[in-house]
């Protein structure tokens, strides 16, 4: 029984800051290939983005599903360290509270975790429909160059067995042990990274290529069978390394490379990238998605586009809806000066 994506949507906060504003403030901008990035407004957070993106994903399904039977939420930067979060989103939607809801929060792999748990539900329950809301806006100290890349965005998906836009062909995962790259100690909202560059790159490459090659082997596929590949984007350059090693070209990466204009979207990175690809993909196209979470692990998912339907609001439209802030405004909005 085929399972797949029957609806999707994205939300990008309206504010942006340019690379030049960082350069003016710090003399340097550490996010490779990122031209500008999205910034959460003062009155926005992961839950407000999630509520909006969940509604958009549902609105993109023409024959509104009978009801959501499974909800999954993903983010690394929720506004509470402890408190159930799904209720804020589902209450905002007016959805009944009798749905099992899971919350995936401990690494940037969380987005694909939520998608895969949604698919597990849909595969197991006839007539089941899963709603997945993935939103992220990672934060670090303004003193840390790790902070430069961090953007904000959200993507939502409706997963079902019928009315599909893209069918899930298969998935594969890797978990491994890597210490010291991108971690957040208890009791702080600031990420840290010991920044051992070659070691970090090695962890990223090993996990992403490990999951992706296992998946392609399982499905009997080669990189050239795919029209698009979407790889975790801690900046706009990292995915190219993993893609190249797997045998993918920059052309296959281009449509889903949202980080060049949005920065590092954390758990929402591959989700927003996938939405950008679905916006332009044609029936028959294949899409490989590979997330990465530090610590470390990767999920790879293979999709085949089977429907022409697109989101009601495209990634391109959200990219165009923007207003710039300068670095001082950025610091104020972020609460970095009080």
């Amino acid at each position: 029984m085929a399972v797949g994506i029957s609806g999707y949507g994205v939300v990008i906060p309206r504010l942006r800051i340019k690379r030049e504003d960082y350069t003016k403030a710090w003399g340097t901008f550490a996010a490779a290939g990122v031209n500008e990035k999205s910034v959460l407004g003062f009155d926005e957070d992961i839950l407000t983005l999630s509520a909006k993106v969940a509604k958009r994903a549902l609105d993109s399904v023409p024959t509104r599903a009978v009801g959501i039977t499974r909800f999954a939420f993903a983010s690394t930067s929720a506004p509470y360290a402890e408190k159930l979060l799904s209720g804020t989103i589902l209450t905002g939607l007016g959805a009944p509270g009798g749905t099992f809801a899971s919350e995936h929060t401990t690494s940037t792999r969380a987005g694909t975790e939520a998608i895969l748990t949604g698919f597990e539900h849909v595969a197991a329950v006839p007539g089941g429909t899963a709603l997945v809301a993935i939103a992220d806006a990672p934060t670090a100290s303004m003193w840390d160059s790790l902070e430069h890349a961090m953007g904000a965005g959200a993507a939502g998906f409706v997963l079902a067995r019928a009315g599909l836009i893209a069918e899930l062909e298969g998935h594969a995962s890797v978990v491994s042990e890597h210490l010291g790259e991108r971690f957040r100690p208890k009791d702080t909202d600031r990420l840290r990274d010991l920044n051992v560059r070659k070691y970090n790159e090695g962890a990223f490459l090993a996990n992403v290529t490990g999951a992706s090659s296992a998946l392609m082997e399982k499905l009997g596929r080669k990189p050239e069978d795919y029209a698009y590949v979407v790889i975790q984007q801690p900046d706009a350059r990292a995915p190219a390394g993993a893609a190249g090693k797997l045998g993918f070209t920059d052309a296959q990466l281009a449509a889903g490379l949202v980080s060049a204009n949005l920065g590092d979207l954390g758990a929402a990175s591959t989700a927003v990238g996938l939405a950008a690809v679905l916006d332009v993909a044609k029936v028959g196209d294949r899409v490989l998605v590979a997330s990465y979470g530090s610590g470390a692990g990767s999920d790879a998912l293979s999709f085949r586009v089977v429907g022409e339907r697109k989101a009601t609001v495209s990634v391109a439209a959200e990219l165009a809806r923007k207003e710039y802030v300068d670095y001082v405004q950025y610091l104020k909005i972020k609460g970095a000066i009080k």
Partner: protein
Amino acid sequence: MAHVSVPMYWRTIPQRYRLVGHKCRKCGKVNFPPKGVCKYCNGSSDFEEIQLSGRGKVHTFTLLGAGGAPPEFAEQEKAGGSYPVTIVELEEGPKIIGQMADVSPKDVRIDMAVTAELRRIYTEEGVIRYGFKFVPAEGA
């Protein structure tokens, strides 16, 4: 600060998060926020719950800034500058008050099409109070 206790806030979550109003069974008008007695006919307490669309247009507006913001919004004003507060006439009839977001204050216009969405309103006692704000309607 205009203190609203958490239990009081909690009781009004359906109207604050997603604009649930009351339709009077006697005169058919929509009350928002919900009232004990219909404010239009003053003759009925018989209501049915109605999910409002959140769509409407700006009836009138003002800008709050330069220290004019209520204390719970002082930090917001300090971080982001003056902000618009609007009275919006909803499609279903009620005129309701709310902040406007995702817009430069200079771009707010009477009759502008808006839609409601969930935002952070303020934080008190470590608890984030969510509620609706208006944003320009898509394509407006």
